[in-house]
């Protein structure tokens, strides 16, 4: 495209009212001074915050001094009760937290929002608060975090669990003390809460083999409802089997039983786990291969892709087991998705006779 055409495009965008098309960092940061005005014009300030978030999302680099100045201006916006504005403030706090100085000045505002009555604020406030918190400060909000992890509001519990997972990287010792609350959350009816809780519980216990074993045994007995949590449990179970050839056979039985789950996501996860296990026999492989073979003719491209990619991996170690899928793989050679077609061909090169591939 020529320069003239580009210019015309930009003019078109301006004419069509795309105010984000030609934003300039300096002018956006200058506009942020409006945050200091009283009374606060929520609509105007929301638009400025959106512009700021937009230039950040475009990859614009903001210097420490500029960021700090903008951050302090943003703190003034807490005086407004406008929900949309407050939500944008939380995101800006997160985005500027790594490039601005003294971000901890918003700790008390965020703690107040996190423990307040407004359900629309609580999850986002937890996430922003944990982003600016260090190990020392974490102890002062520990009580609130434990409460949030078991909160009946799924968004609140998920926000607390996911934030705790991030915090494991800097304050693992503190987060480990919340194991009881996290374990309680695994029983949540909310699918995402169950997934986040199981993930965090595993990372709390990861160095205790016996505890991980118990965890898998406990939750493999039909107690999980979330397909995401079950997929995650399959991953932990597979890791146990990988690391220990003397592992409990019930663990393999659990993964195998997931091949009959009603969710395709879980069925695929189980099949993919089984075929990746070391020392697996042909008869143990067979039901997993059958499932992947069925997925090869799915109308969903993502599922065909997943199936053929996994078959491709198995065909390296177990070409004979994948041979039963050759007819289905041949059909995929002409798949409209190039990645699927390529994977089908490379798989056939390992399992098929050459003449079938040449067609």
């Amino acid at each position, binding site marked *: *495209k020529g320069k003239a055409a580009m210019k015309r495009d930009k003019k078109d965008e301006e004419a069509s*009212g*795309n*105010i*984000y098309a030609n934003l300039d960092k300096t002018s956006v940061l200058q506009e942020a001074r409006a945050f200091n005005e009283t009374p606060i014009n929520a609509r105007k300030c*929301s638009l400025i*915050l*959106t512009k700021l978030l*937009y230039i950040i*999302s*475009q*990859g*614009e680099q903001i210097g420490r001094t500029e960021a700090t100045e903008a951050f302090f201006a943003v703190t003034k916006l807490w005086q407004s009760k406008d*929900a*949309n504005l*407050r*939500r*944008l403030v939380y*995101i800006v706090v997160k985005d500027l*937290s*790594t490039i601005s100085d003294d971000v901890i000045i918003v700790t008390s505002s965020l703690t107040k929002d996190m423990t307040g009555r407004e359900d*629309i604020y609580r*999850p*986002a406030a937890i*996430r922003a608060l944990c*982003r600016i918190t260090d190990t020392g400060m974490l102890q002062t909000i520990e009580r609130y975090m434990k409460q949030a992890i078991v909160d009946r509001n*799924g*968004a609140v519990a*998920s926000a607390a669990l*996911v*934030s705790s*997972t*991030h915090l494991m*990287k800097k304050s693992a010792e503190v987060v480990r003390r919340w194991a009881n609350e996290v374990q309680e959350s695994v029983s949540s009816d909310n*699918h*995402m809460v169950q*997934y*986040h809780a199981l*993930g965090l519980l*595993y*990372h709390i216990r*990861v160095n205790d083999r016996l505890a991980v074993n118990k965890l898998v045994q406990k939750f493999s007995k039909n107690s999980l409802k979330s397909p*995401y949590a079950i997929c995650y449990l399959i991953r932990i179970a*597979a*890791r146990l089997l990988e690391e220990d050839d003397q592992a409990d056979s019930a663990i393999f039985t659990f993964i195998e039983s997931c091949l009959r789950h009603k969710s*395709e*996501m879980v069925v695929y*996860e189980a099949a993919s786990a089984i075929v990746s296990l070391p020392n697996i026999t042909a008869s143990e492989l067979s039901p997993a291969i059958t499932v992947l073979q069925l997925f090869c003719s799915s109308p*969903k*491209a*993502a*599922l065909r*892709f*997943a199936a053929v*990619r996994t078959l491709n991996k198995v065909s390296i170690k177990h070409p004979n087991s994948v041979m039963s899928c050759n007819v289905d793989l041949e059909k995929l050679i002409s798949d*409209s*998705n*190039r*990645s*699927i077609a390529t994977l089908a061909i490379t798989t056939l090169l390992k399992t098929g006779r050459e003449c079938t591939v040449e067609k």
Partner: protein
Amino acid sequence: VEPYNMGNFDNDPTSLYSVKGIVILDQDGNRVIGKYFDHAAFGTTKEQKAFEKSMFQKTSRNSSAEILLLDGVTCIYRSNVDLYMYVLGSSRENELILESVLNCLYDAISTVLRKNVEKKALVDAMDTCILILDEICDEGIIMETDPQAVVQRCALKGDEVMFSDQ
């Protein structure tokens, strides 16, 4: 600046960090909005733009293909009129899980834009779309995949979204 996110996206199957990025491009392949979480793979804006360019070239010609493996990154995508939405995932992640993230993104945005999934409408609702991205993924961990839950959590002014419209 030390990147906040040090999660392991690729090698640890038990890592909860599995979404490397969420990006929406326009019909010229320019970023309308986007967020990257894997700072090892996409550390600089230059790297991100180069990846987007290559991804756009491969997907805009065959927009019905839905999925692509590019430089070890699983890219799941959906397009409509002049928008291309992508969820970039770790290559170890279950593709169907990544697909559920993309579907959530598409459906949540579609609800907010009252089924007008096109650039002009998205630009007009930029603030809400930024909130949607934030509700779906946190630093690479999948937060929520139910579009109704996502839309409800986006602090919309009462009359802005009617679920009865659906």
